[in-house]
C-alpha cells in the first residue's frame, strides 16, 4: 500500500479540523439563500406543476453547495501547500501522480458531499422533499463533486497566488453555478439565454440532480449524464497530464 490512504486522510483531516469554516458556513449560506429566495419568490414563480418554488430550489442549492465546496477544497488545499512550502512533504515520498490525483479529488468530493448532505439535512426542516429516483441523485452528486474536485486541483496546480484561486472562484465557478438554473428553470429564459445555458456544463449537473428528486427535468437525465461524464473524463485527463509532467510542482 502506498501513500494514497494517508494523503486522503490528511486532506480529510485538514478540512474537518476547520469544519466551522469549511462545512457549517456553506450550509448556513445555502439556508440563507433558501429563506430569502423562497420567501421573496414563493407563489410568484412556478416551474413545475406539482413542485413549489421552495421545493424546486432545494436540490439546486444542495448541488450548488456540493460543486462550490468540492472546488474550494482541492484548490485551497493545494495552493496553501504550495505557498507555505509544505508541499515538499507530499513530493518527497514515493506517491504516484495517480495517487495524488485520487486523494485530492476524493477528499474534495467528500467535502462537497458532506456540505451537500448538511444543506439537505437543514432544509428538510423547512421544505418537504421526496426523492423520486435516488440513483440519479447519487450519480450526479458524485460526478459533479468529482468534476469540481478535479477542476480545483487543476486551478491549484496552475495558480501561484491565493488571489488567482479567488479570481477563478468569483469569475468562473460562481457565475457558472448561479447561471445554471439553481434559482430558476432555464425554460423561463429568453431563447438566446436558454441556448447559452446549454453550453454551461453546470446546468446539466443541476438539472440532472433535480431530476432525481422530481422525476422531471429540462434535459433527459441520461443525456445530461453523458455531458457530465465526458466533462469529468476530459478534466481528469488534463489534470493527470499536468501532474505527470510535474508542471509547476516538480520544476
Amino acid at each position: 500500500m502506498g501513500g494514497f490512504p494517508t494523503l486522503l486522510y490528511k486532506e480529510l483531516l485538514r478540512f474537518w479540523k476547520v469544519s466551522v469554516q469549511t462545512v457549517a458556513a456553506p450550509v448556513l449560506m445555502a439556508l440563507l439563500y433558501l429563506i430569502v429566495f423562497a420567501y421573496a419568490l414563493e407563489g410568484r414563480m412556478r416551474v413545475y406543476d406539482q413542485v413549489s418554488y421552495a421545493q424546486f430550489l432545494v436540490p439546486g442549492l444542495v448541488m450548488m453547495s456540493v460543486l462550490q465546496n468540492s472546488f474550494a477544497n482541492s484548490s485551497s488545499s493545494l495552493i496553501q501547500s504550495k505557498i507555505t512550502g509544505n508541499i515538499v512533504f507530499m513530493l518527497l515520498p514515493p506517491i504516484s501522480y495517480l495517487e495524488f490525483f485520487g486523494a485530492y479529488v476524493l477528499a474534495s468530493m467528500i467535502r462537497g458531499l458532506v456540505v451537500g448532505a448538511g444543506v439537505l439535512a437543514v432544509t428538510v426542516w423547512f421544505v418537504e422533499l421526496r426523492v423520486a429516483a435516488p440513483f440519479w441523485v447519487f450519480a450526479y452528486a458524485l460526478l459533479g463533486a468529482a468534476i469540481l474536485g478535479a477542476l480545483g486541483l487543476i486551478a491549484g496546480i496552475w495558480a501561484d497566488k491565493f488571489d488567482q484561486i479567488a479570481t477563478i472562484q468569483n469569475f468562473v465557478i460562481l457565475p457558472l453555478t448561479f447561471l445554471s438554473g439553481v434559482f430558476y428553470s432555464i425554460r423561463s429564459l429568453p431563447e438566446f439565454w436558454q441556448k447559452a445555458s446549454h453550453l454551461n456544463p453546470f446546468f446539466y449537473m443541476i438539472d440532472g440532480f433535480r431530476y432525481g428528486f422530481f422525476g422531471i427535468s429540462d434535459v433527459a437525465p441520461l443525456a445530461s449524464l453523458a455531458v457530465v461524464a465526458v466533462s469529468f473524463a476530459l478534466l481528469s485527463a488534463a489534470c493527470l497530464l499536468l501532474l505527470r509532467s510535474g508542471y509547476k510542482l516538480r520544476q
Partner: protein
Amino acid sequence: MTLAIEALNVEKRYGALQALAGVSLAVAEGEFFGLLGPNGAGKTTLISIIAGLARASAGRVRVMGADVITDYRRARRMLGVVPQELVFDPFFTVRETLRIQSGYYGLRNNDPWIDEVIHHLDLGAIADANMRTLSGGMKRRVLVAQALVHRPPVIVLDEPTAGVDVELRQGLWQFIRRLNRDGHTIVLTTHYLEEAEELCDRIAMLKAGRVVALDSTRNLLETFSGLVLKLRLDRETLPEGLAAEVLSSEGGRFALRLSDHGALGQVLQRLREAGATIRELELEPPDLEEVFLRVMAKH
C-alpha cells in the same frame, strides 16, 4: 561498493539561467559528505533533483542505485531530506505530522520508531502541540524527524543549522553524527564552514553550477591552505622581501599567509635582520574558510 548518491553530468536550466552545468559526483555509502558553495551555486537545485523535487534537463541521478526518475519509488524510500526552508503544515500537531509523513511512505503502525525519533530529538514535551505554536528551532527539529520517519539510509540536510541557536546546533550535530556512525550516509550543505570542516569526510565545492573542487576534507586543507601568521610589531611597515602574502596590515598588526612552516623561519629571520621587535605572534592552522575563498577566487 554501493554508491549512496551518484550524479552523472546533471544539467538544469530554468529558461536562460543555467543552474547546473554538468555536475558529476559520487557519494559512497556511509560517508559524511559536504556540499559547499556560495548562494546561487546550485546546491539546492542539485538536492532538489536528487530528491525528485525538480527534474534534471540532462544527466541522471541514482540514490542507492535507484534512478530518481525511472525507479523513483525505491529512490525516494532510500532518501530523507531536511529542506532549507522552515516549512510546516499549520493544521497538525507534531505527532500527527510524523504519523502522516510515515503514512506517505506506506508505513502504518510506525509509532515505536516515531517515539524513538521524538525522544532523540527531544520533542517529547511538544509532541501534541500544534506546529504553529513551535519556535523556529523546534520546527527545525521536527523537519529532521520528518526526514527520518521511514528510516532512510541516505539523509540530505540543506542548511540545517541556519538560524539555529548554538545549543540546538550542538545537539543536532551530535544526533546526526550518531546517525552517521550507525551507517547512514549524510549529505550536508551549510554556510558554516567550520561545521563542514569538523564533520565532513569529503567535500564538493560548487560554483555557478559546476563542481570546482572535490576531495577529502584533509586533502583540501593540505592542498589549498597555508598558514596564517598574525603579528604585532613595534612598527607600522613590514620589511621588504618577506616570503609571505600580506593579508592585512593595520596599526602595527599584520596578517601574513605562509605557504608552509618552512616559510615561518624565513619570515622571522627577515624581521630580525630588519631590527623589528615582535610584540605578539600567533600562528593559525589552515581552515576550510581559507580553502573555500581560495577555490572560489581561482575559478
